[in-house]
Structures are given as structure tokens and as C-alpha cells.
């Protein structure tokens, strides 16, 4: 068994990276990721890890160095937030397109402008189509557990895709919680030595070309392969979750279904606010309201069949988005869910709340407000307002 510690999310990930001991880490500091990498840099400086830490001049360079190191044949990790992720955007597609299983922690933060350093999902949602697997975490424990599993998921031969481990800035990254760490040896055994499964550049006896021009005659086929890799990731995520659960006693597959079985009204949510929302579900249950919740862990690939199946008995569903998709029909997860639920014979009435932008953490009362709307929709038998703001001043 591992030991119980009091860690912030950033400490948890820095310790997790120490235990994984990647070959290369290239990163650039940005709030709220900074102390994660500061802590990891101390491990490098102290010789606690063997990692080659590349202190680059920007996030564009950070991801570029990661791509080079991963193509060379190393196990590679990095971390960023917000504008940093935005600056990486071009190279995110190189990492996934070249099928390099880089592991990146995204400490979720609002995107400027106006300038805001606090938590929301705008950064990760902006990268949702970049071909990266995305895992979301409710707390430091889940972030740590996701990091361990991300290594195995991304490196699986049938997948070979980069993986992002996401957790909310400040409320997770900088808040100290009780969590359990695995023993160093357990992590070593779980992640295993890095297998250079696919034609590393440093295998000089078998020279290969990475990144040649790929025009009308082949590009479509290579994109189709990436789609297949995402599909392949679905069973792999469950398989690795099962294995990790045996080791740690913790975890779940694609999502956590909370008091959902007999629920009439439900909430769909990702990240730290799920904890607050579960508290509200308990309060509602205590007054006889059949409320439930689905907290999504795996956003990419989106497990639409399983999510729809888990929500099929609901009469009303409130979808909570911690990012806006300007001009779209609601937030990013709302779009995914409406699509997924369309396959049901009698899908629940569904509406969308945007909440938590720029670190405006939702209170219990505000989550209650969302459930109250769900109850109104249940009574009315229709959802007239599809896209609304939970916490905005009129």
C-alpha cells in the first residue's frame, strides 16, 4: 500500500513524475502550472530522477522538444496551462499526427483576454480536436491516478497517442488535500520500462523518416489511422483502469456515476466542481428529490455510447460547461452530449449551464440553482432555455 500525504495537485503531479522518471521533460513555466515544474526541476537538480530537463524559451519550443525527444525514442512528459497550451497548438497536432505518446499535464486555466489566471476548461477545450486523449480529474488524487494511467494508455501499441491529464487551476493545483501515493516500486512496476515500440529515430541501424510531406495521396489515410487509434483507446482506458484499481484500490472507467441509477434529474459535469455538485445531490436526496450526477473522466475519445446508456433513465439533464464555445449551440460538452443522447429512444430533456469561468467557483447554492432549473423543466415537460449562464450578473 502507498502512503497517505497532504499534497496540492501540483505537488501530487510533480511526485508522480518523479516516480515515473521520464527520459525527457521540456517545459516552460506558466501559472498555475509553475510550481509543478519548479518542484520537478528540483528533483532533476537533486539527481532524484534521471530525466533530461530541457528549459526552453516558450511552450511552442517545449512541445517541439517533446516531439523530437519522443520521436527519438524516449518517454516524454511536459505540463502547461492556458496561453501556454494555446502557444503549443501547432505542435499539439504534430505530436498526435506523428503518433507520439507524450504525456502532458494541463492545469486548466482561463484564456486571455481579459487577463485571468484562474481555473476553467477553456484551454483544454480549445485543444479538444488536436488528436490528444484527454482525462479530467476532480481532485489531486484523481490527477495523480490519471497521470499513472495516462502513461500506459498512450504507450499502448494499438493507441500510440499523446495524452493530456487535466485538472483545474488553483482549486486543485494549489489546494492541499489528503491523498494516497503509490510506493515508488509500485509505480515502476505499473508503468514499466518504456518500450520503443515504433521505429524510434535513434535506432540508427534502421533509419526512418519522420514528418515527410503527405499530400492528397496519403494524408486522408493517416488521419483515418488516428481515428482508429482513438477508438482503440476506449477499451484500453477500461483495461488500464481495472489494472490500476487492483494496484491502488481506486478509480473508475470513463466516468463516475453518482446516485444515478434511479435518478429523475441529473447533472453532467467535469473537474473539481463535481465534488460540490455531489454534495448538492446528497442534500437533494435527503429531501426526497431523485437527483444524480455523471462526472466524466475521459473526454477524448468521448465515450458516447456508454455515457448515453448511463443517462438513459433520466427525465432531465443539466449539462455543466466550464468553457464557452462562442457562437455554438451551447458549450463544448453540451454539444457532445446532445449528439450522444440522440441515439436514445427517449432522451432526457437537456439544457446547458456555463459556469466557473475564470475561476468563479460554483457554490452549493449555485449548483442548487441548476438543479432547481432541472426540476422546473421536469414539471414543465420542456426545456425552453437551452444555453444559459449560472453565475452571471445581469
Amino acid at each position, binding site marked *: 500500500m502507498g502512503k497517505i500525504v497532504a499534497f496540492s495537485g501540483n505537488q501530487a503531479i510533480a511526485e508522480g513524475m518523479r516516480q515515473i522518471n521520464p527520459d525527457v521533460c521540456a517545459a516552460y513555466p506558466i501559472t498555475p502550472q509553475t510550481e509543478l515544474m519548479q518542484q520537478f526541476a528540483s528533483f532533476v537538480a537533486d539527481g532524484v530522477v534521471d530525466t533530461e530537463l530541457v528549459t526552453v524559451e516558450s511552450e511552442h519550443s517545449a512541445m517541439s522538444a517533446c516531439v523530437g525527444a519522443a520521436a527519438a525514442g524516449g518517454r516524454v512528459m511536459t505540463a502547461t496551462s492556458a496561453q501556454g497550451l494555446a502557444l503549443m497548438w501547432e505542435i499539439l497536432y504534430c505530436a498526435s499526427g506523428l503518433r*507520439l505518446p507524450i504525456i502532458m499535464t494541463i492545469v486548466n486555466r482561463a484564456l486571455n483576454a481579459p487577463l485571468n489566471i484562474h481555473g476553467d476548461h477553456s484551454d483544454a477545450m480549445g485543444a479538444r480536436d488536436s488528436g490528444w486523449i484527454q482525462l479530467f480529474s476532480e481532485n489531486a488524487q484523481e490527477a495523480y491516478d490519471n497521470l499513472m494511467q495516462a502513461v500506459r494508455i498512450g504507450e499502448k501499441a494499438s493507441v500510440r497517442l499523446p495524452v493530456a491529464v487535466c485538472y483545474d487551476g488553483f482549486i486543485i493545483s494549489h489546494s492541499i488535500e489528503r491523498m494516497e501515493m503509490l510506493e515508488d516500486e509500485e509505480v515502476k512496476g505499473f508503468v514499466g520500462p518504456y518500450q520503443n515500440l515504433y521505429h524510434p529515430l535513434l535506432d540508427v541501424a534502421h533509419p526512418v523518416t519522420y514528418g515527410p510531406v503527405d499530400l492528397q495521396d496519403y494524408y486522408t489515410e*493517416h488521419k483515418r*489511422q488516428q481515428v482508429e487509434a482513438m477508438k482503440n483507446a476506449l477499451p484500453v482506458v477500461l483495461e488500464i483502469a481495472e489494472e490500476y484499481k487492483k494496484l491502488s484500490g481506486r478509480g473508475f472507467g470513463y466516468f463516475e456515476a453518482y446516485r444515478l441509477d434511479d435518478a429523475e434529474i441529473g447533472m453532467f459535469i467535469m473537474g473539481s466542481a463535481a465534488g460540490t455538485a455531489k454534495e448538492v445531490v446528497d442534500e437533494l436526496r435527503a429531501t426526497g428529490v431523485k437527483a444524480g450526477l455523471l462526472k466524466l473522466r475521459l473526454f477524448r475519445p468521448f465515450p458516447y455510447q456508454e455515457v448515453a446508456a448511463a443517462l438513459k433513465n433520466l427525465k432531465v439533464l443539466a449539462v455543466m460547461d466550464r468553457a464557452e464555445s462562442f457562437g455554438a449551440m451551447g458549450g463544448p460538452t453540451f454539444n457532445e452530449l446532445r449528439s450522444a443522447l440522440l441515439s436514445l429512444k427517449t432522451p432526457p430533456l437537456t439544457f446547458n449551464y456555463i459556469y466557473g469561468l475564470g475561476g468563479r467557483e460554483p457554490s452549493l447554492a449555485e449548483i442548487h440553482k441548476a438543479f432547481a432549473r432541472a426540476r422546473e423543466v421536469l414539471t414543465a415537460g420542456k426545456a425552453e432555455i437551452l444555453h444559459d449562464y449560472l453565475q452571471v450578473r445581469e
Partner: protein
Amino acid sequence: MSESKLKGWKELPIGGLILEPGNSEAYNTGTWRTFKPVLHPEICTHDLFCWLYCPDAAILVKDGKMVGFDMKHCKGCGICAKVCPHKPSAITMVKEGEAEEGDKGKETK
């Protein structure tokens, strides 16, 4: 290269990797050409400036003599015609399809 010979997505290496080294030789870049080089052997003194400057490897040399062009890889850039020290040049550029090999053709700038 006919389309039916191209591999499907299940057969191709992932990530757009090219697994065999030196395979650019198999890629027919000669189809990119608009102008093709024409050699005038009566002017050529085999100084091999063309061979030295060719950005591909499209100048064919045998026993120290310039013997012609690798038309599968020559992209028709015209550098060989430009660097030829002879006046007039021992190589002239002719628009594809307008003249046969060995034809004097029109000299390009």
C-alpha cells in the same frame, strides 16, 4: 503511380513515417517539371558544373563525362542551363511537350 497501387490505411505505417531509407529515389518527381533540360553534346566540354550545381542528382555522369539527365527526378529548375560556362549554354530549357529530346527549342531566360 496509379491510384490502385497505393496502400490503404490499414497497411500503411502510422504517423506518416517512411520506414525504408533512401526511398525518395522511388518517388517520381519528374512529373513536377514544366521545362525540361536538353543537352547539346557538340558544345559540352564535360566540365561538370551542371553536376556540381544540380540540387537533386539528376545529371548523369559516366567515366567523367556528362551523358544526360535522370528525367524521373529532374524537376526542371534550370540551374544546370544557367551555370553552364559556355556561351551559348550546352544545356537549354525547353517547355515540356513543345519539343522532343535533342530539339534545339527555345532558350529560356
